[in-house]
């Protein structure tokens, strides 16, 4: 092979100019700043988790784990204090359960309607309208629950004692409305991502529209729908304002949706807005509850990933 100095292409040659003469500093800066953005968000997440650990560990030096997880009386700020977290865990699960019962059928129904039935013009109006619900501040939902839904719950309550204005049911129903857009919009995205050829295959076999929807499209989109469900439930468990305002803030161990309850998030908000001295047991309780909340959502995410990996229908 003959040696040619490639850095000096013959003038006028098509190869002229392809050799890099100076380092492109700008490009490196771009890559660096993008990597920094990604890194920062991870670092912040890790930082938040780390900040939960120290006060939580300190909390469990004073309160036994068993007492915390199994105790059924939640009165950490009273004297004598009691640290049984079960009532507020049940409160969170009860309200999340009610919200899920509202949001899953309505959200999924809306998603199936929009992706399988509605024509272009309808979808162009309805989908943004649905997503608009997502933009409503949760404090507005909270007062909607107290001033509008609560009285109806009182009026139509079918069993036994009439509930107060503050109830798990009122808060749960409104929280359900709040997460419909999450459930609906993400499910619709998942359904729309199913290749049109699969639907055609169903129609060509004499399937009706709802059969194509229920037996072809929804099963094929299941992993996306489950992801929408998980995100919706996570939002519900983590939601604070609605339950703070509308659920009654009473750490009451009950499965009766007509009663006032307190959720984990509402406890954190309530305790956090009081004047607890830093380092006191009440202060540490906030972090312990926060850690438990984090572990619960984390476990739920992991479980649902398992479920999805097992049941999803892979196309392409």
């Amino acid at each position: 092979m003959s040696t040619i100095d490639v850095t000096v292409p013959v003038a006028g040659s098509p190869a002229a100019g392809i050799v890099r003469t100076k380092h492109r500093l700008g490009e490196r800066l771009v890559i660096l700043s993008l990597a920094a953005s990604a890194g920062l968000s991870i670092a912040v997440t890790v930082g938040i988790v780390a900040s939960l650990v120290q006060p939580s560990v300190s909390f469990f030096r004073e309160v036994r784990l068993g007492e915390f997880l199994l105790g059924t009386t939640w009165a950490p700020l009273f004297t004598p204090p009691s640290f049984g977290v079960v009532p507020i865990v049940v409160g969170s699960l009860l309200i999340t359960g009610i919200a899920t019962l509202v949001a899953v059928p309505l959200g999924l129904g809306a998603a199936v309607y929009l992706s399988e039935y509605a024509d272009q013009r309808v979808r162009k109006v309805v989908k943004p309208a649905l997503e608009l619900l997502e933009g409503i501040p949760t404090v507005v939902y909270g007062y909607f629950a107290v001033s509008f839904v609560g009285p109806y719950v009182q009026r139509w309550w079918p069993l036994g004692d009439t509930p107060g204005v503050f109830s798990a049911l009122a808060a749960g129903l409104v929280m359900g409305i709040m997460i419909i857009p999450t459930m609906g919009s993400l499910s619709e995205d998942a359904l729309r991502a199913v290749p049109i050829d699969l639907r055609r295959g169903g129609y060509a076999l004499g399937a009706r529209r709802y059969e194509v929807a229920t037996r072809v499209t929804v099963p094929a989109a299941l992993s996306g729908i489950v992801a929408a469900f998980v995100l919706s439930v996570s939002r519900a468990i983590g939601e604070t304002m609605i339950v703070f305002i509308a659920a009654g803030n009473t750490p009451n161990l009950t499965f009766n949706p007509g009663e006032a309850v307190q959720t984990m998030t509402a406890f954190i908000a309530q305790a956090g807005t009081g004047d607890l001295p830093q380092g006191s047991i009440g202060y540490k309780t906030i972090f312990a509850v926060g850690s438990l909340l984090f572990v619960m959502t984390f476990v739920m995410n992991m479980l649902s990933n398992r479920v999805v990996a097992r049941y999803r229908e892979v196309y392409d």
Partner: protein
Amino acid sequence: MTDALTQPPRVGAGAGATTGGSVASVREPDAVSGAVSSVPVPTDVVFELRDLAVYYGDVAAVEGVDLDVPARRITALIGPSGCGKSTLLRCLNRMNDLVDGARVTGRLAYYGLDLYDPRVDPVEVRRRIGMVFQKPNPFPKSIYDNIAFGPRVNGVRRNLDDIVEKALTDAALWDEVKDKLRSSAFALSGGQQQRLCIARCLAVEPDVILMDEPCSALDPIATSRIEDLMVELRERYTIVIVTHNMQQAARVSDYTAFITTDVRDGGSRVGHLVEFDATEKLFTNPSDPRTEGYITGRFG
């Protein structure tokens, strides 16, 4: 290109080394019917198209089609890309209903019954007139559930095992998949997937099978297996196939319709039927110079 003008039609010459083998295999004496050389005899008319036109919105895709599709024969629709042959095919089982803004005018009769009569249930139409698509589109389910889908949505609950076995046998796939009926259809090769789609179609016991370029995503060996299968199915089913591949039309079909596009005054392109005849006649002695031009490779 200019050489092609002076040469005999490519199809007769069996052009293309890769597909040449399957031409030979279809013409083998033990092949089921020798579709190419048999002279078609007049039979029942399944579809009767009169002045048929399809519009997307205000734009005509294909216009003025008069065509009689015979029963238990293979009818091929050939023509250049965008001439409207797939559009025409999708009219035959009302799949165009699923396209926003699609509209059909003229008459399309199925055994004398107007398919576009408002009282006609398109779902019932598609049960009788099945379809196989260009790209194999198995459902993301098991092989078994793919085949059982059609019978299930049509209310069949009993003897599904037998139906599945029969459909897979008829589609020449049973021996390859009988031990893995519960595994995903996506584990199959492209050619097997397409035969699965044919089996899925057979499981609802249709009268007609429409095939929209069923081999265009397959390699030559898989293509030749599908072609053999089509020739076998022709005994019992009426088949209409859209194909880009003229050799394929010549190999498997009994009748061929040549469709091409006209450029109208406004610059819009509209497909229309140029010639419809027995395949052998159309490929060896076309009556329209445009057909001859197309099959000899002068355009398209």
